[in-house]
């Protein structure tokens, strides 16, 4: 078990501080400084990333990572919820790229089609339905941004530290027998020639086989879950009685109704 290293520690602290400054608060002072701090934190995290095989995959990987993480920060800190949704769409594109990079082609496509295409558009749709006119106070304030950011800094420090420590054990296992026999861990790319790899050319075919044989019960349960969610959503909307019958909760709601 290795201790947490200085760079991870500093990067976590900087990320927490930067997020705290970027989150909507009373004043808009310190936003630029928050941006600088968050960028510095991202830079330090990028420094912790390991370079990959060749220059091209390095470049693609770093671009995908940058798109994902920068737009994630944007999605969380923007004032206007519409901008949040657009930044989140960019996050989804970045994660889809990361999925493609890992050879998970189906998931990359599904993320773009299902998440960015369907879920996010529904979000925007409800946003347009619900957006009250004019400035909203609650988009310009945060709940306890300081405590949330401290939580975030602690969590990211802990997660990166444990991840590094976990994989470090595996790395030692590999290092223990470098020369002879098969590697102690079954790597995808070492099986590639035998066709047993998840990096196979027949990706969707193999994925479908796996999904509808080994995980057939889970597919059935997921289908049931979708049906229940559908019925539930309809029931929630249909059973919410009109506001004048029930009495809206606030003065503003009374005006809106």
């Amino acid at each position: 078990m290795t201790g947490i290293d200085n760079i991870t520690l500093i990067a976590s602290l900087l990320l927490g501080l930067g997020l705290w400054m970027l989150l909507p608060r009373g004043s808009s002072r310190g936003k630029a400084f928050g941006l600088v701090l968050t960028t510095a934190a991202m830079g330090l995290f990028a420094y912790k990333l390991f370079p990959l095989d060749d220059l091209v995959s390095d470049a693609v990987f770093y671009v995908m990572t940058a798109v994902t993480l920068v737009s994630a920060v944007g999605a969380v800190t923007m004032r206007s919820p519409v901008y949040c949704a657009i930044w989140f769409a960019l996050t989804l594109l970045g994660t889809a790229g990361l999925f493609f990079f890992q050879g998970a082609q189906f998931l990359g496509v599904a993320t773009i089609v299902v998440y960015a295409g369907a879920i996010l558009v529904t979000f925007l749709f409800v946003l347009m339905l619900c957006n009250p006119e004019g400035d909203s106070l609650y988009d310009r304030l945060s709940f306890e941004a300081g405590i949330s950011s401290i939580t975030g800094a602690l969590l990211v420090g802990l997660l990166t530290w444990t991840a590094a420590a976990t994989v470090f054990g595996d790395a030692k296992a590999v290092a223990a027998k470098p020369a002879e026999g098969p590697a102690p861990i079954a790597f995808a790319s070492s099986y590639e020639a035998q066709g047993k790899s998840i990096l196979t050319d027949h990706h969707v075919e193999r994925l479908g086989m796996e999904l509808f044989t080994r995980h057939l019960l889970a597919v059935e349960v997921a289908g049931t879950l979708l049906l229940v969610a559908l019925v539930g959503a309809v029931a929630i909307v249909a059973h919410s009685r009109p506001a004048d019958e029930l009495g809206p909760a606030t003065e503003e709601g009374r005006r809106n109704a």
Partner: protein
Amino acid sequence: MPNEFDHALAEIHLLQNYLLIGAVLFTVGLVGFLARRNMIVMFLAAEMMLQGVSVSLVGWGRFHNDWGGQMLVIFILTVAACEAAIALALIQMLFQRSGNLDIAIWQRLREENQPAYVDREIPEDFDPKQVFPTLTPAGIDPHIREEETIHRTHV
């Protein structure tokens, strides 16, 4: 075979990179979920946490040459779709009741002896009576023929 050793090390590095990205994505989503007050933005942040987990799962799946990681992500997608449907229905209902998307309004559901959360600051540039620009209608009203409202002769 030193080549195979390098290969294994490259796979480990790839996994570590993905775990790091997943951790940062999860954390940013968590901070957003805790701090933001707009219900829709809160749900976007929750979806972002799911994305962080998905990235880690795909990384582990590649590392162990196992389909399980990708299978789990497929089911995460399913659950996220269900969650979005129900959450948006709830948000729509709550908006009809309260007139805005602020989650802090629903602190009225708290226990009686709990203190209320009070905003400590008001944004400096906040203007509650802000008016957004609108477009004035331009041009002349089109002449509508009576029979065309019932039956369209040509498209």
